[in-house]
């Protein structure tokens, strides 16, 4: 295996806009993904994550920069690269006119795989996706989580080297998300390279060995989740509410607390090694928040720190 399976260097994608400057969706992104690694693009909607994924998936031509997927240039070797990828798109494009198992059979044929092999693989994958009892069902009758699992099964029909997942759990309920994460974690254990985009920090923390934080088409930071939290946040965060009318006034009095204080319209965040200590200090000073919460620091805090904005707006 090569040392990297995906390498981007100054990757740019812009779209012409009538009577205006080009819209730059991806603005000079560079990163490398090693074989077997689980790599994430974390950022809010419109950050350019999906566009990056499409370029790597060889279904969108880059405007400039270098892109290397499995040693091949997508501009020339689109079908070759795609033969080695499994793609789970953001928008469900399962075939509603076909049954669950048929979706896998048909998709396997697109890679030129023999029918018998595709049939065998389809049954294995239905098992893996916990959909074996739904093989003959209509796609429309599946729940959102099941559709997603079927899409993942479909993406694995060609035994891909890299699995691209664009917002894999967006729109799913918490239980369905956990089932999906378990499946993806299995794949990770088996050595499949995962590249995923997400705007959920818990998803990134669960699944990614390493990630880049993307905003407005640019990379803001790169590292492992733990590493990023250590660099850009503190161990714990104390969240307090004094009511929207009091927030600003109180904020002035606790500015020196912890390592840093962020004042949001409705909440104040105090970054510290020990949230409990900060809360005690607050109470001792005669400040009594209406609600208080001490939690582990997360990638959400990293994003807020880097961009001054929340991930989900």
């Amino acid at each position: 295996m090569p040392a990297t399976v995906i390498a981007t260097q100054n990757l740019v994608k812009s779209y012409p806009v009538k009577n205006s400057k080009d819209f730059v969706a991806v603005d000079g992104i560079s990163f490398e993904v090693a074989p077997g690694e689980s790599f994430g693009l974390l950022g809010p909607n419109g950050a350019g994550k999906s566009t990056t994924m499409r370029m790597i998936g060889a279904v969108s031509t880059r405007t400039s920069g270098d892109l290397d997927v499995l040693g091949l240039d997508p501009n020339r070797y689109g079908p070759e690269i795609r033969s080695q990828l499994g793609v789970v798109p953001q928008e469900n494009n399962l075939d509603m006119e076909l049954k669950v198992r048929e979706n896998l059979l048909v998709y396997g044929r697109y890679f030129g795989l023999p029918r018998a092999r595709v049939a065998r693989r389809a049954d294995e994958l239905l098992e893996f996706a916990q959909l074996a009892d739904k093989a003959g069902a209509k796609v429309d009758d599946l729940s959102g989580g099941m559709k997603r699992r079927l899409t993942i099964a479909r993406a694995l029909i060609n035994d891909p080297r890299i699995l691209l997942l664009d917002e894999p759990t967006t729109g799913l309920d918490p239980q369905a998300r956990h089932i999906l994460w378990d499946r993806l974690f299995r794949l990770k254990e088996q050595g499949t390279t995962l590249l995923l985009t997400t705007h959920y920090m818990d998803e990134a923390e669960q699944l990614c060995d390493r990630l880049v934080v993307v905003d407005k088409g640019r990379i803001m930071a790169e590292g492992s989740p733990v590493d990023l939290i250590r660099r850009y946040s503190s161990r714990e965060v104390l969240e307090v509410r004094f009511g929207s009318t009091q927030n600003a006034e109180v904020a002035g009095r606790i500015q020196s607390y912890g390592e840093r204080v962020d004042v949001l319209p409705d909440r104040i965040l105090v970054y510290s090694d020990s949230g409990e200590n900060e809360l005690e200090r607050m109470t001792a000073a005669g400040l009594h928040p209406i609600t208080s919460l001490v939690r582990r620091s997360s990638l959400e805090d990293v994003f807020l720190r880097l961009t001054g904005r929340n991930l989900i707006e």
Partner: protein
Amino acid sequence: MGDISDEMRAETRAAAVAAAARTRRYGSWYVAEHRFRVMRSYAQTVLFTAVGSPLVYLYAMGVGLASLVDGNLGDDAVDGVSYLAFLAPALLASSAIAVASEEFTYPIMLGFKWNPTFFGMNASSIQPGQIINGLVISVAARMLVTCTIFYVFMLAFGAVPGRLGFVAVPVALVTGLAFGVLVMAYTATLKDDTGQLAMVQRFVILPMTLFSGTFFPLDVLPPYLQWIGWVSPLWHGTELSRVFAYGLSEPIWLSLVHVLYLAALLAIGWVWARRLATRRLNK
């Protein structure tokens, strides 16, 4: 270290090239395979219309209406043959157009927009142009079945005096496809269907069927309406079919024009549709 990595890179590349080779060659057929599987779910409708529509049309027009025409004008009513013989090749070509207008409109809208399976295909080793090819292949197959059944009914009704009448089947096929690929290309430009496809049905396909020398020769129309026939693939296809079905006498250059015109439309529509698909799928 660098050497090992380079070697492995070469291996990865070779594996990818090998894995995509079959799809590069046969991808269009894989797409067609998908379409056949989908068609299977409405196979009954396909067969029912293929059998039902010749019966309905040949009885209503070829027997019912024909008795009026022949009654007034004699057995050599139009072009020196019976009205049924005159009409049948036109109905055959129209049946191909009907298949085209079904398969190249809503299914295209579906694949690009409502249930974007074309994007799913495009994420595999399949290329956009192959999606278009596969669609054409699968519709051609359905059209061939429909037209062949229609032709068998024409024979049963005694509507084919000429010995080369069977050539009308491939002519109908080309006519249907030549028109179909243009409709497909047009549909591929639509971001949304806000009634455009129904308009095509009403203001393109219906007038074309009525004014393409289908039910009466084009030259009985006033000159300012005859152009509809000249631009209509249906007229060119029908006239060419008539040459084979009952020996319609027209100059050979005109027959050649029919062939070239249909071939040109087919080529233009096909290439245009492939381009549009590429642009739409590879944003």
